[in-house]
């Protein structure tokens, strides 16, 4: 059932999927405080898929990041997306994202690192918002975030919050501001050894609280609301190569008006540190 028109849904979807700015040993859907080592490079490829009733999106994104200092990283994300709204399909380049993360606090002890970071990301407006379904919202969006991480040899926990300020496009449409909050626990079943494969199991609780979108200054009733997801995932690494994967399963939903609830979201990321 399609109650919300595609440009609106497209805007929301882009903000949901491409606001990760994930680096290294961070959660799959949330964010963590990890940054790259100074002068380090990260190359990553990510596949993702989401489904909400008849609406489906499948995508592939490439990410490159650079360690400016041991506490500050920056990079770009280039996503390619294919969308289907049950009747029409469109595909092409989605909005590019530039991001940066700064770790402003770090407390190290034997086998344990606690740290906190802030992040900033900008979503460009390059994607075709006139495609049907739309591939972008035709506006530049700003994403800010803060995250804390407790990472030990045995277990992990993270907490993060992001706030998304969507821009207003040429048609005077503006997607609703959005909070994303994440609480993540991680468990390593076997003690890690350097140069040996390492596995960490993750369980995330991801919340999304979205304001109503506006068109010509008027709130749109079938937009915005709250969704919560429980997301099991895995982080597997060997030396400088990592695979992260997880699936978001909706556990609570309170969407305004008539909207399609999420069925699931899947993400898998392959990362190399160079």
């Amino acid at each position, binding site marked *: 059932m399609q109650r919300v028109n595609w440009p609106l849904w497209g805007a929301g979807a882009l903000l949901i999927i491409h606001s990760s700015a994930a680096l290294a040993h961070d959660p799959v859907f949330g964010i963590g405080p990890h940054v790259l080592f100074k002068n380090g490079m990260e190359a990553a490829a990510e596949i993702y898929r989401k489904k909400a009733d008849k609406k489906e999106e499948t995508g592939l994104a490439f990410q490159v990041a650079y360690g400016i200092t041991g506490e500050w990283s920056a990079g770009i994300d280039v996503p390619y997306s294919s969308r289907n709204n049950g009747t029409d399909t469109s595909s092409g380049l989605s909005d590019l994202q530039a991001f940066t993360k700064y770790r402003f606090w*770090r407390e190290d*002890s034997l086998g344990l690192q606690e740290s906190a970071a802030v992040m900033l990301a900008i979503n460009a407006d390059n994607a075709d918002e006139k495609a049907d379904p739309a591939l972008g919202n035709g506006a530049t969006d700003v994403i800010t975030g803060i995250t804390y991480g407790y990472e030990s040899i045995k277990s992990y926990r993270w907490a993060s919050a992001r706030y998304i300020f969507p821009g207003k496009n040429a048609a005077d449409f503006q997607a609703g501001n959005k909070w994303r909050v994440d609480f993540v626990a991680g468990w390593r079943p076997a003690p890690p050894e350097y140069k040996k494969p390492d596995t960490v199991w993750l369980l995330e609780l991801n919340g999304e609280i979205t304001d109503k979108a506006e068109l010509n200054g008027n709130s749109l009733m079938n937009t915005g609301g709250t969704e919560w997801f429980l997301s099991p995932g895995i982080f597997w690494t060997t030396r400088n190569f990592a695979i992260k994967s997880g699936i978001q399963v909706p556990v609570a939903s309170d969407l305004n008006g008539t909207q399609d609830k999420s069925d699931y979201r899947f993400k898998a990321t392959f990362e190399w540190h160079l």
Partner: protein
Amino acid sequence: MKLSLIKTLLLFTAITLLWSNFSFAAGIQYNMRVDGLACPFCAYGIEKKFTKTEGVDSVDIDLQKGLVIVKTREGKTFREEKLKEIINDAGFTMKSVTEKDL
């Protein structure tokens, strides 16, 4: 003739062993106690930083003990401050270091 050949081979072997011993003896092993090491993937930055440094022969990391072992080639030495800087640039904290001749 045969005795001369054996003598030559023995002399060659002795010189080779001496040469090899000299070349190994000149390096230094630094044992660093490093805090914050919680995952092997993250620790890769330490190896990368050291192996890009001229004169470093090998890097090994023991996550359980928080130990980073760096062996250098002949003539290469590190000041403690430089070691701290490299470890910090990799995102960790060096607590102490000991060194011994190889």
